[in-house]
């Protein structure tokens, strides 16, 4: 068992690579945090997409519980206090229900086994004036 450490030896280049990855992770996380801070208020909707097709558009200002039949079974989506979560779903690891409450545009909920993605978007999107 003591010998096992011998196999864990890293050279200088490995350590440099490790530091680079750590820095990139921190930068990415910081960038996303900044992006979240800039996230403007206003009314938002949760857009539920199944197999890349929009199936539901939930107003986050109205509380409620919604269900949807996805690939592996019924997915229960709950909206409360301007946040949305997947309350119940059938999947091997339950990533999307573990994700918990989400209220910002930068945080999508993804459930790959159920082929379901929930994203948060501004309610007036599409009515924006586009200058081209």
């Amino acid at each position, binding site marked *: 068992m003591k010998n096992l450490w011998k*196999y*864990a*030896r*890293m050279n200088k280049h490995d350590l440099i690579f490790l530091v680079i990855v*750590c820095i990139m992770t*921190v930068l*990415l996380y910081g960038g996303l945090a900044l992006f979240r801070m800039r996230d403007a208020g206003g009314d938002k909707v949760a857009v539920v997409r199944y197999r890349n097709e929009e199936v539901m558009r939930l107003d986050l200002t109205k509380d409620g519980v919604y269900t949807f039949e996805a690939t592996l079974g019924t997915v229960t989506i709950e909206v409360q206090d301007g946040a949305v979560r997947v309350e119940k779903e059938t999947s091997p690891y339950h990533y999307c229900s573990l994700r918990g409450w989400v209220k910002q545009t930068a945080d*999508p909920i*993804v459930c790959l086994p159920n082929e379901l993605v929930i994203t948060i978007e501004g309610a007036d999107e599409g009515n924006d004036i586009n200058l081209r």
Partner: protein
Amino acid sequence: MKTTRTKKMVTEALLLGAAILFQMIEPALPVAVPGVKLGLANIIGLIALFMYDWKSMLKINLMRVLLASLLRGTFLGTAFWLSLSGVLLSSCAVILLRKFSKLSVIGLSMASSVFHCLGQILAVSVIYENSYLISYLPMMWLLSIPTGILTGILARLTFTRIRKGGIEHDIQL
């Protein structure tokens, strides 16, 4: 000359078999953090790279993803495309890093794991047309460091045993 070619082919087939097996049983293995995979199948790719060349590695990795998805019944599904893009990007990255840098097996294993995550995220962003999915990436990268180191150690242990087992190859760690 002919025997060595046959031997190489058979060894590659054995490695491919082991890789498919790892890929298939991996989701069943318990891991401390939910959703984290060790990437055991990746060890086989590294072994192929060190035993033969980059062509063997690419061949084994691509065949592994293809055959495992056929066996699981996820062929051409979302999971298949994620797996394929992850493995393509990570294989290319490892091949280039092996050629142009002095990373050891552990470094290559980390790189492989990091680029696998990146490839998956890129693929899922394209499939779902949503660039915010990148918010999963910092967490994945953070976790890919320990798993990369762990699989690197396992690959190194395997090399030592292969060498003792008498397969005459010039494996440099």
